[in-house]
Protein backbone atom coordinates (compact mmCIF):
# COMPACT_ATOMS: atom_id res chain seq x y z
CA UNK A 1 0.00 0.00 0.00
CA UNK A 2 0.95 3.59 0.31
CA UNK A 3 4.59 4.23 1.18
CA UNK A 4 5.42 0.71 2.01
CA UNK A 5 8.12 0.85 -0.67
CA UNK A 6 9.81 -2.51 -0.29
CA UNK A 7 6.72 -4.11 1.14
CA UNK A 8 4.67 -3.86 -1.99
CA UNK A 9 1.62 -6.00 -2.15
CA UNK A 10 1.84 -8.66 -4.73
CA UNK A 11 -1.63 -9.08 -6.06
CA UNK A 12 -1.91 -10.10 -9.66
CA UNK A 13 -4.91 -7.82 -9.92
CA UNK A 14 -2.57 -4.89 -9.61
CA UNK A 15 -0.25 -6.31 -12.20
CA UNK A 16 -2.97 -5.47 -14.71
CA UNK A 17 -3.18 -1.92 -13.48
CA UNK A 18 0.62 -1.65 -13.85
CA UNK A 19 0.28 -2.25 -17.55
CA UNK A 20 -2.68 0.06 -17.87
CA UNK A 21 -0.76 2.86 -16.24
CA UNK A 22 2.30 2.40 -18.42
CA UNK A 23 0.10 2.78 -21.46
CA UNK A 24 -1.59 5.78 -19.93
CA UNK A 25 1.71 7.44 -19.16
CA UNK A 26 3.31 6.80 -22.51
CA UNK A 27 0.36 8.73 -23.91
CA UNK A 28 1.16 11.89 -22.00
CA UNK A 29 4.94 11.75 -22.20
CA UNK A 30 5.01 14.62 -24.68
CA UNK A 31 3.69 17.00 -22.03
CA UNK A 32 6.75 18.57 -20.42
CA UNK A 33 4.88 21.29 -18.62
CA UNK A 34 6.13 23.28 -15.72
CA UNK A 35 3.54 22.92 -13.01
CA UNK A 36 2.74 26.02 -10.97
CA UNK A 37 5.74 27.74 -12.50
CA UNK A 38 8.03 25.21 -10.86
CA UNK A 39 10.85 23.53 -12.73
CA UNK A 40 10.18 19.98 -13.83
CA UNK A 41 12.44 17.59 -11.92
CA UNK A 42 14.25 15.37 -14.38
CA UNK A 43 13.41 12.12 -12.66
CA UNK A 44 9.77 13.10 -12.21
CA UNK A 45 8.33 14.29 -15.50
CA UNK A 46 4.85 13.07 -14.57
CA UNK A 47 4.71 15.02 -11.34
CA UNK A 48 1.18 16.24 -11.98
CA UNK A 49 -0.14 12.72 -12.40
CA UNK A 50 2.01 11.45 -9.55
CA UNK A 51 0.82 14.09 -7.14
CA UNK A 52 -2.78 13.22 -7.97
CA UNK A 53 -2.07 9.56 -7.29
CA UNK A 54 -0.17 10.48 -4.15
CA UNK A 55 -3.17 12.41 -2.85
CA UNK A 56 -5.45 9.57 -3.85
CA UNK A 57 -3.32 7.02 -2.00
CA UNK A 58 -3.15 9.39 0.90
CA UNK A 59 -6.92 9.56 1.03
CA UNK A 60 -7.25 5.78 0.82
CA UNK A 61 -4.71 5.46 3.58
CA UNK A 62 -6.26 8.04 5.82
CA UNK A 63 -9.88 6.93 5.50
CA UNK A 64 -9.44 3.22 4.92
CA UNK A 65 -6.04 1.59 5.26
CA UNK A 66 -4.86 3.35 8.40
CA UNK A 67 -8.05 2.82 10.46
CA UNK A 68 -8.25 -0.81 9.39
CA UNK A 69 -4.56 -1.37 10.05
CA UNK A 70 -4.87 0.34 13.44
CA UNK A 71 -7.73 -1.98 14.28
CA UNK A 72 -5.64 -4.94 13.14
CA UNK A 73 -2.74 -3.79 15.29
CA UNK A 74 -5.10 -3.33 18.23
CA UNK A 75 -6.76 -6.75 18.09
CA UNK A 76 -3.69 -8.73 17.08
CA UNK A 77 -1.10 -9.62 19.71
CA UNK A 78 2.43 -8.59 18.83
CA UNK A 79 3.68 -12.16 18.49
CA UNK A 80 0.96 -12.90 15.96
CA UNK A 81 1.90 -9.83 13.93
CA UNK A 82 5.52 -10.90 13.98
CA UNK A 83 4.49 -14.38 12.87
CA UNK A 84 2.41 -13.00 10.02
CA UNK A 85 5.28 -10.76 8.90
CA UNK A 86 7.68 -13.71 9.04
CA UNK A 87 5.26 -15.88 7.10
CA UNK A 88 4.98 -13.44 4.18
CA UNK A 89 8.67 -12.60 4.26
CA UNK A 90 9.41 -16.29 3.94
CA UNK A 91 7.13 -16.63 0.91
CA UNK A 92 9.06 -13.79 -0.67
CA UNK A 93 12.18 -15.86 -0.07
CA UNK A 94 11.66 -17.83 -3.29
CA UNK A 95 11.78 -14.63 -5.26
CA UNK A 96 14.85 -13.48 -3.36
CA UNK A 97 16.66 -16.71 -4.26
CA UNK A 98 15.72 -16.38 -7.95
CA UNK A 99 16.98 -12.82 -8.04
CA UNK A 100 20.17 -13.69 -6.15
CA UNK A 101 21.08 -16.10 -8.93
CA UNK A 102 19.93 -13.83 -11.73
CA UNK A 103 22.28 -11.18 -10.34
CA UNK A 104 25.11 -13.69 -10.16
CA UNK A 105 25.24 -13.72 -6.37
CA UNK A 106 25.86 -17.44 -6.03
CA UNK A 107 26.91 -17.51 -2.40
CA UNK A 108 24.04 -15.32 -1.27
CA UNK A 109 21.68 -17.45 -3.36
CA UNK A 110 22.86 -20.57 -1.58
CA UNK A 111 22.43 -18.88 1.81
CA UNK A 112 18.96 -17.67 0.97
CA UNK A 113 17.99 -21.13 -0.25
CA UNK A 114 19.12 -22.48 3.11
CA UNK A 115 17.20 -19.73 4.80
CA UNK A 116 14.00 -20.58 2.97
CA UNK A 117 14.35 -24.30 3.68
CA UNK A 118 15.10 -23.80 7.37
CA UNK A 119 12.24 -21.36 7.94
CA UNK A 120 9.75 -23.41 5.92
CA UNK A 121 10.47 -26.54 7.98
CA UNK A 122 11.91 -25.83 11.41
CA UNK A 123 10.29 -22.40 11.33
CA UNK A 124 6.84 -23.93 10.80
CA UNK A 125 6.00 -22.65 7.32
CA UNK A 126 7.88 -19.45 8.00
CA UNK A 127 5.99 -18.33 11.10
CA UNK A 128 9.26 -18.29 13.00
CA UNK A 129 12.42 -16.76 11.63
CA UNK A 130 14.78 -19.47 12.85
CA UNK A 131 17.26 -18.79 10.06
CA UNK A 132 18.22 -15.35 11.36
CA UNK A 133 18.90 -16.90 14.76
CA UNK A 134 21.42 -19.28 13.22
CA UNK A 135 23.13 -16.52 11.26
CA UNK A 136 21.37 -16.67 7.90
CA UNK A 137 20.36 -13.06 7.54
CA UNK A 138 17.48 -11.86 5.43
CA UNK A 139 18.45 -10.22 2.13
CA UNK A 140 16.39 -7.79 0.17
CA UNK A 141 16.39 -8.63 -3.53
CA UNK A 142 13.71 -8.22 -6.16
CA UNK A 143 13.36 -8.21 -9.90
CA UNK A 144 13.57 -4.43 -10.24
CA UNK A 145 17.01 -4.64 -8.62
CA UNK A 146 17.98 -7.44 -10.97
CA UNK A 147 16.93 -5.34 -13.95
CA UNK A 148 19.12 -2.53 -12.60
CA UNK A 149 22.06 -4.91 -12.30
CA UNK A 150 21.43 -5.97 -15.88
CA UNK A 151 21.72 -2.36 -16.97
CA UNK A 152 18.07 -1.42 -17.44
CA UNK A 153 17.77 2.26 -16.63
CA UNK A 154 15.50 3.44 -13.85
CA UNK A 155 13.12 5.55 -15.90
CA UNK A 156 10.77 8.16 -14.51
CA UNK A 157 9.39 8.10 -10.99
CA UNK A 158 5.81 6.88 -10.74
CA UNK A 159 3.25 6.84 -8.00
CA UNK A 160 0.91 3.94 -8.63
CA UNK A 161 -2.63 3.83 -7.32
CA UNK A 162 -2.76 1.84 -4.06
CA UNK A 163 0.77 0.50 -4.58
CA UNK A 164 2.63 3.75 -3.98
CA UNK A 165 6.05 4.86 -5.20
CA UNK A 166 7.72 3.07 -8.08
CA UNK A 167 9.59 3.76 -11.31
CA UNK A 168 9.03 2.48 -14.83
CA UNK A 169 11.64 -0.18 -14.07
CA UNK A 170 9.62 -1.09 -11.01
CA UNK A 171 6.60 -2.09 -13.10
CA UNK A 172 8.05 -5.22 -14.76
CA UNK A 173 9.82 -5.70 -11.45
CA UNK A 174 6.55 -5.75 -9.56
CA UNK A 175 4.89 -8.10 -12.04
CA UNK A 176 7.75 -10.58 -11.81
CA UNK A 177 7.85 -10.39 -8.03
CA UNK A 178 4.11 -10.99 -7.82
CA UNK A 179 4.37 -13.96 -10.20
CA UNK A 180 7.20 -15.50 -8.16
CA UNK A 181 5.37 -15.13 -4.86
CA UNK A 182 3.11 -18.02 -3.75
CA UNK A 183 0.96 -15.53 -1.80
CA UNK A 184 -0.32 -14.27 -5.15
CA UNK A 185 -2.00 -17.60 -5.85
CA UNK A 186 -3.42 -18.46 -2.44
CA UNK A 187 -6.44 -16.24 -2.60
CA UNK A 188 -7.83 -12.84 -1.84
CA UNK A 189 -8.20 -13.18 1.97
CA UNK A 190 -4.51 -14.00 2.26
CA UNK A 191 -3.61 -10.96 0.19
CA UNK A 192 -5.80 -8.77 2.34
CA UNK A 193 -4.00 -9.96 5.46
CA UNK A 194 -0.69 -9.41 3.74
CA UNK A 195 -1.58 -5.84 2.79
CA UNK A 196 -2.91 -5.11 6.27
CA UNK A 197 0.22 -6.42 7.84
CA UNK A 198 2.43 -4.47 5.44
CA UNK A 199 0.57 -1.28 6.27
CA UNK A 200 0.83 -1.98 10.00
CA UNK A 201 4.57 -2.63 9.70
CA UNK A 202 5.13 0.61 7.84
CA UNK A 203 3.23 2.64 10.40
CA UNK A 204 6.34 4.01 12.08
CA UNK A 205 7.88 5.11 8.80
CA UNK A 206 4.67 6.75 7.62
CA UNK A 207 4.37 8.67 10.87
CA UNK A 208 7.99 9.75 10.65
CA UNK A 209 7.41 11.21 7.21
CA UNK A 210 4.26 12.91 8.37
CA UNK A 211 6.21 14.60 11.15
CA UNK A 212 9.53 15.33 9.51
CA UNK A 213 8.69 16.19 5.92
CA UNK A 214 8.19 19.78 4.84
CA UNK A 215 6.78 18.53 1.56
CA UNK A 216 5.65 14.94 1.94
CA UNK A 217 5.47 14.29 -1.78
CA UNK A 218 9.05 15.42 -2.39
CA UNK A 219 10.32 13.76 0.77
CA UNK A 220 8.75 10.43 -0.18
CA UNK A 221 10.05 10.60 -3.74
CA UNK A 222 13.61 11.45 -2.74
CA UNK A 223 13.85 8.90 0.02
CA UNK A 224 12.21 6.18 -2.07
CA UNK A 225 14.61 6.66 -5.00
CA UNK A 226 17.66 6.78 -2.76
CA UNK A 227 16.52 3.79 -0.76
CA UNK A 228 16.09 1.79 -3.96
CA UNK A 229 19.54 2.85 -5.22
CA UNK A 230 21.00 1.71 -1.95
CA UNK A 231 19.35 -1.71 -2.32
CA UNK A 232 20.71 -2.06 -5.83
CA UNK A 233 24.25 -1.35 -4.68
CA UNK A 234 23.72 -3.51 -1.56
CA UNK A 235 24.72 -0.58 0.60
CA UNK A 236 28.27 -0.30 -0.71
CA UNK A 237 29.92 2.98 0.11
CA UNK A 238 32.52 3.02 -2.64
CA UNK A 239 30.97 6.10 -4.18
CA UNK A 240 30.72 7.79 -0.81
CA UNK A 241 31.69 11.15 -2.32
CA UNK A 242 28.03 11.25 -3.34
CA UNK A 243 27.33 12.13 0.28
CA UNK A 244 29.31 15.31 -0.25
CA UNK A 245 28.93 16.11 -3.92
CA UNK A 246 26.17 18.53 -4.63
CA UNK A 247 26.20 20.77 -7.66
CA UNK A 248 27.41 23.86 -5.88
CA UNK A 249 29.84 22.22 -3.54
CA UNK A 250 32.69 24.21 -4.96
CA UNK A 251 30.63 27.22 -5.80
CA UNK A 252 30.92 30.44 -3.94
CA UNK A 253 28.24 31.10 -1.38
CA UNK A 254 29.52 34.65 -1.19
CA UNK A 255 29.91 34.58 2.57
CA UNK A 256 32.48 32.05 3.67
CA UNK A 257 33.98 34.68 5.93
CA UNK A 258 30.54 35.94 6.82
CA UNK A 259 29.72 32.78 8.74
CA UNK A 260 30.64 34.30 12.08
CA UNK A 261 28.63 37.41 11.24
CA UNK A 262 25.56 35.33 10.61
CA UNK A 263 26.06 33.54 13.87
CA UNK A 264 26.45 36.83 15.74
CA UNK A 265 23.39 38.35 14.14
CA UNK A 266 21.38 35.34 15.18
CA UNK A 267 21.52 36.50 18.73
CA UNK A 268 20.18 39.89 17.73
CA UNK A 269 17.30 38.40 15.84
CA UNK A 270 16.25 36.14 18.66
CA UNK A 271 16.57 38.95 21.16
CA UNK A 272 14.43 41.23 19.06
CA UNK A 273 11.80 38.54 18.88
CA UNK A 274 10.55 36.73 21.94
CA UNK A 275 13.05 36.54 24.77
CA UNK A 276 13.85 32.92 24.23
CA UNK A 277 17.33 33.20 25.63
CA UNK A 278 16.06 34.04 29.08
CA UNK A 279 13.74 31.07 29.12
CA UNK A 280 16.64 28.80 28.45
CA UNK A 281 18.73 30.30 31.18
CA UNK A 282 15.93 29.69 33.61
CA UNK A 283 15.68 26.07 32.67
CA UNK A 284 19.39 25.70 32.95
CA UNK A 285 19.53 27.18 36.41
CA UNK A 286 16.46 25.50 37.80
CA UNK A 287 16.96 22.06 36.41
CA UNK A 288 19.90 20.31 37.91
CA UNK A 289 19.49 17.24 35.75
CA UNK A 290 20.17 19.27 32.65
CA UNK A 291 23.28 20.79 34.08
CA UNK A 292 24.68 17.39 34.87
CA UNK A 293 23.63 15.96 31.57
CA UNK A 294 24.91 18.74 29.40
CA UNK A 295 28.33 18.01 27.99
CA UNK A 296 31.02 20.60 28.58
CA UNK A 297 29.99 23.48 26.39
CA UNK A 298 32.60 24.80 24.07
CA UNK A 299 30.26 25.91 21.35
CA UNK A 300 28.58 28.60 23.33
CA UNK A 301 29.36 31.17 20.66
CA UNK A 302 26.27 30.06 18.80
CA UNK A 303 23.21 30.91 20.81
CA UNK A 304 20.47 29.29 18.86
CA UNK A 305 17.43 28.35 20.77
CA UNK A 306 15.71 25.07 21.02
CA UNK A 307 12.57 26.23 22.69
CA UNK A 308 10.02 28.82 21.95
Amino acid at each position, binding site marked *: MYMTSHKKSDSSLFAVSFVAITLLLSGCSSKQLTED*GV*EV*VEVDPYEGFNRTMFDFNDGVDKYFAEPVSDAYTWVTPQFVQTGV*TNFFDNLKGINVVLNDFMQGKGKQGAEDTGRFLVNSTVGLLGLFDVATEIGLEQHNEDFAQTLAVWGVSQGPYLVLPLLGPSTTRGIPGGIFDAAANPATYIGVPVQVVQMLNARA*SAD*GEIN*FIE*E*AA*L*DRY*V*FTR*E*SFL*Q*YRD*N*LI*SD*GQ*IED*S*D*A*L*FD*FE*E*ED*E*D*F*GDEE*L*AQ*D*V*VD*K*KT*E*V*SEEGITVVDE*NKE*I*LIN*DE*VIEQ*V*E*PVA*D*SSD*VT*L*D*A*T*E
Partner: protein
Amino acid sequence: MGKQSLLISNNTLGVFILFAFNKIKLFCLIIISFGITTTVVATENNDSTTAIVEEVVVKEKEGIVAKVIVTDFQSVLIDAMKQGKTLSFEDRCLYFKDAILKSHDVLKSLRTIVGSKEWRKFTDEQKALLTEVFTRFIVSTYAFNFNEFSDESFKYVSEHTTKKGNVVVRSILYIPEGKRKKVTFDYALKKNSDGWRIYNIAADGVSDLATRRSEYRRILSGEDGFNALIAIINKKIDNYAK
Protein backbone atom coordinates in the same frame (compact mmCIF):
# COMPACT_ATOMS: atom_id res chain seq x y z
CA MET B 1 50.76 -3.94 16.00
CA GLY B 2 47.57 -3.19 17.89
CA LYS B 3 49.49 -2.43 21.04
CA GLN B 4 51.96 -0.27 19.18
CA SER B 5 49.36 1.85 17.45
CA LEU B 6 47.73 2.47 20.80
CA LEU B 7 51.00 3.78 22.10
CA ILE B 8 51.55 5.86 18.99
CA SER B 9 48.37 7.79 19.41
CA ASN B 10 48.94 8.37 23.08
CA ASN B 11 52.59 9.09 23.40
CA THR B 12 54.91 9.74 20.52
CA LEU B 13 58.02 9.74 22.68
CA GLY B 14 57.08 6.37 24.14
CA VAL B 15 56.82 4.94 20.67
CA PHE B 16 60.23 6.07 19.66
CA ILE B 17 61.67 4.50 22.79
CA LEU B 18 59.76 1.33 22.07
CA PHE B 19 60.97 1.26 18.49
CA ALA B 20 64.52 2.04 19.49
CA PHE B 21 64.37 -0.76 22.01
CA ASN B 22 62.98 -3.18 19.46
CA LYS B 23 65.64 -2.06 17.05
CA ILE B 24 68.40 -2.81 19.52
CA LYS B 25 66.96 -6.23 20.25
CA LEU B 26 66.67 -6.95 16.57
CA PHE B 27 70.16 -5.62 16.01
CA CYS B 28 71.63 -7.93 18.65
CA LEU B 29 69.65 -10.83 17.30
CA ILE B 30 71.02 -10.29 13.86
CA ILE B 31 74.58 -10.09 15.13
CA ILE B 32 74.18 -13.21 17.20
CA SER B 33 72.51 -15.35 14.59
CA PHE B 34 74.39 -14.31 11.51
CA GLY B 35 77.36 -12.45 12.81
CA ILE B 36 77.29 -10.31 9.73
CA THR B 37 75.80 -6.85 9.80
CA THR B 38 76.92 -3.31 9.37
CA THR B 39 76.04 -0.06 11.09
CA VAL B 40 74.98 1.33 7.71
CA VAL B 41 72.12 -1.14 7.39
CA ALA B 42 71.04 -0.41 10.93
CA THR B 43 70.84 3.37 10.47
CA GLU B 44 68.99 3.02 7.18
CA ASN B 45 66.40 0.82 8.83
CA ASN B 46 66.02 3.26 11.65
CA ASP B 47 65.33 6.19 9.31
CA SER B 48 62.62 4.41 7.38
CA THR B 49 60.85 3.22 10.52
CA THR B 50 60.85 6.75 11.87
CA ALA B 51 59.17 7.95 8.69
CA ILE B 52 56.57 5.19 8.90
CA VAL B 53 55.88 5.98 12.54
CA GLU B 54 55.32 9.65 11.76
CA GLU B 55 52.95 8.79 8.95
CA VAL B 56 50.96 6.47 11.19
CA VAL B 57 50.76 9.12 13.90
CA VAL B 58 49.28 11.70 11.52
CA LYS B 59 46.83 9.27 9.96
CA GLU B 60 45.56 7.90 13.24
CA LYS B 61 45.13 11.32 14.75
CA GLU B 62 42.88 12.53 11.92
CA GLY B 63 40.94 9.29 11.76
CA ILE B 64 40.27 9.01 15.44
CA VAL B 65 38.99 12.55 15.69
CA ALA B 66 36.38 12.10 12.94
CA LYS B 67 35.27 8.79 14.41
CA VAL B 68 35.11 10.18 17.92
CA ILE B 69 32.89 13.07 16.80
CA VAL B 70 30.39 10.48 15.57
CA THR B 71 30.61 8.03 18.46
CA ASP B 72 30.36 10.84 21.00
CA PHE B 73 27.26 12.16 19.31
CA GLN B 74 25.74 8.69 19.23
CA SER B 75 26.37 8.17 22.90
CA VAL B 76 24.50 11.42 23.52
CA LEU B 77 21.56 9.98 21.56
CA ILE B 78 21.58 6.73 23.51
CA ASP B 79 21.98 8.64 26.74
CA ALA B 80 18.98 10.85 26.00
CA MET B 81 16.91 7.80 25.13
CA LYS B 82 17.88 6.13 28.39
CA GLN B 83 16.79 9.18 30.36
CA GLY B 84 13.57 8.94 28.38
CA LYS B 85 10.56 10.52 29.96
CA THR B 86 12.45 11.91 32.93
CA LEU B 87 13.47 14.72 30.60
CA SER B 88 10.85 17.01 29.15
CA PHE B 89 10.84 17.88 25.45
CA GLU B 90 12.44 21.23 26.24
CA ASP B 91 15.11 19.56 28.35
CA ARG B 92 16.00 17.20 25.53
CA CYS B 93 16.14 20.15 23.13
CA LEU B 94 18.73 21.86 25.29
CA TYR B 95 20.67 18.67 25.61
CA PHE B 96 20.69 17.98 21.88
CA LYS B 97 21.34 21.57 20.89
CA ASP B 98 24.66 21.54 22.61
CA ALA B 99 25.61 18.11 21.26
CA ILE B 100 24.60 19.03 17.70
CA LEU B 101 26.42 22.34 17.63
CA LYS B 102 29.56 20.62 18.84
CA SER B 103 29.48 17.86 16.26
CA HIS B 104 27.65 19.21 13.20
CA ASP B 105 28.43 21.96 10.75
CA VAL B 106 24.82 23.11 10.61
CA LEU B 107 25.54 26.25 8.61
CA LYS B 108 27.47 24.39 5.93
CA SER B 109 24.72 21.82 5.62
CA LEU B 110 22.05 24.49 5.40
CA ARG B 111 23.89 26.34 2.67
CA THR B 112 24.12 23.19 0.61
CA ILE B 113 20.43 22.51 1.16
CA VAL B 114 19.44 25.98 0.02
CA GLY B 115 21.98 26.11 -2.79
CA SER B 116 24.38 28.94 -3.54
CA LYS B 117 22.05 30.63 -6.01
CA GLU B 118 19.28 31.13 -3.48
CA TRP B 119 21.62 31.69 -0.55
CA ARG B 120 23.29 34.65 -2.22
CA LYS B 121 19.88 36.26 -2.69
CA PHE B 122 19.16 36.24 1.04
CA THR B 123 19.81 39.28 3.18
CA ASP B 124 21.97 38.79 6.24
CA GLU B 125 18.86 38.94 8.40
CA GLN B 126 17.22 36.21 6.34
CA LYS B 127 20.31 34.05 6.58
CA ALA B 128 20.39 34.50 10.33
CA LEU B 129 16.71 33.78 10.74
CA LEU B 130 16.79 30.68 8.56
CA THR B 131 19.89 29.35 10.31
CA GLU B 132 18.21 29.81 13.67
CA VAL B 133 14.93 28.21 12.64
CA PHE B 134 16.66 25.38 10.81
CA THR B 135 18.87 24.57 13.80
CA ARG B 136 15.85 24.57 16.08
CA PHE B 137 14.11 22.21 13.66
CA ILE B 138 16.99 19.74 13.65
CA VAL B 139 17.21 19.90 17.42
CA SER B 140 13.45 19.37 17.83
CA THR B 141 13.51 16.42 15.44
CA TYR B 142 16.09 14.68 17.61
CA ALA B 143 14.32 15.66 20.82
CA PHE B 144 11.03 14.30 19.53
CA ASN B 145 12.31 11.02 18.14
CA PHE B 146 14.92 10.02 20.70
CA ASN B 147 12.68 9.90 23.74
CA GLU B 148 12.55 6.31 24.87
CA PHE B 149 14.95 3.47 25.19
CA SER B 150 14.40 -0.14 24.24
CA ASP B 151 17.92 -1.54 24.07
CA GLU B 152 18.98 0.29 20.93
CA SER B 153 22.70 0.43 20.31
CA PHE B 154 25.11 1.87 17.78
CA LYS B 155 27.95 -0.23 16.50
CA TYR B 156 30.88 1.35 14.73
CA VAL B 157 31.63 -0.41 11.45
CA SER B 158 34.23 1.42 9.44
CA GLU B 159 35.82 4.65 8.51
CA HIS B 160 36.63 5.60 4.99
CA THR B 161 38.46 8.56 3.49
CA THR B 162 36.98 9.73 0.19
CA LYS B 163 39.00 10.81 -2.82
CA LYS B 164 38.48 14.43 -1.86
CA GLY B 165 39.78 13.90 1.65
CA ASN B 166 36.43 13.85 3.44
CA VAL B 167 35.58 11.10 5.87
CA VAL B 168 32.62 8.73 6.01
CA VAL B 169 32.03 6.94 9.29
CA ARG B 170 29.70 3.99 8.98
CA SER B 171 27.79 2.58 11.90
CA ILE B 172 24.75 0.42 12.46
CA LEU B 173 21.87 1.19 14.76
CA TYR B 174 20.44 -2.01 16.20
CA ILE B 175 16.79 -1.86 17.21
CA PRO B 176 16.01 -5.18 18.91
CA GLU B 177 12.30 -4.46 19.29
CA GLY B 178 11.76 -2.57 16.08
CA LYS B 179 10.05 -3.72 12.92
CA ARG B 180 13.26 -2.85 11.18
CA LYS B 181 16.00 -4.55 13.18
CA LYS B 182 18.91 -2.46 11.98
CA VAL B 183 19.59 0.74 10.13
CA THR B 184 22.94 1.61 8.58
CA PHE B 185 24.04 5.16 9.28
CA ASP B 186 26.73 6.80 7.20
CA TYR B 187 28.05 10.01 8.70
CA ALA B 188 29.77 12.27 6.20
CA LEU B 189 32.27 14.57 7.85
CA LYS B 190 34.06 17.59 6.50
CA LYS B 191 36.86 19.42 8.17
CA ASN B 192 36.38 23.05 9.08
CA SER B 193 38.43 25.39 11.27
CA ASP B 194 37.06 23.68 14.41
CA GLY B 195 37.98 20.18 13.21
CA TRP B 196 35.87 17.38 11.79
CA ARG B 197 32.17 18.15 11.71
CA ILE B 198 29.18 16.10 10.55
CA TYR B 199 27.97 17.50 7.26
CA ASN B 200 25.51 14.90 6.05
CA ILE B 201 23.90 11.73 7.39
CA ALA B 202 22.55 8.87 5.31
CA ALA B 203 20.23 6.27 6.83
CA ASP B 204 20.11 3.09 4.74
CA GLY B 205 21.39 5.11 1.82
CA VAL B 206 18.88 7.94 2.16
CA SER B 207 20.92 11.10 2.31
CA ASP B 208 19.50 13.73 4.60
CA LEU B 209 20.97 16.64 2.65
CA ALA B 210 19.79 15.38 -0.72
CA THR B 211 16.25 14.90 0.54
CA ARG B 212 16.10 18.25 2.27
CA ARG B 213 17.63 19.95 -0.74
CA SER B 214 14.76 18.86 -2.95
CA GLU B 215 12.20 19.89 -0.36
CA TYR B 216 13.63 23.28 0.52
CA ARG B 217 14.28 24.28 -3.05
CA ARG B 218 10.78 23.35 -4.04
CA ILE B 219 9.37 25.56 -1.33
CA LEU B 220 11.81 28.40 -1.98
CA SER B 221 10.95 28.43 -5.67
CA GLY B 222 7.29 29.02 -4.87
CA GLU B 223 5.57 32.30 -4.17
CA ASP B 224 7.10 34.21 -1.25
CA GLY B 225 9.36 31.19 -0.86
CA PHE B 226 11.45 32.38 2.04
CA ASN B 227 8.58 33.24 4.34
CA ALA B 228 6.72 30.11 3.31
CA LEU B 229 9.74 28.01 4.24
CA ILE B 230 10.10 29.66 7.63
CA ALA B 231 6.38 29.21 8.29
CA ILE B 232 6.41 25.52 7.36
CA ILE B 233 9.46 24.76 9.49
CA ASN B 234 7.97 26.63 12.45
CA LYS B 235 4.80 24.62 12.10
CA LYS B 236 6.79 21.39 12.18
CA ILE B 237 8.63 22.52 15.29
CA ASP B 238 5.32 23.37 16.97
CA ASN B 239 4.02 19.90 16.16
CA TYR B 240 7.07 18.31 17.73
CA ALA B 241 6.73 20.46 20.82
CA LYS B 242 3.09 19.50 21.36
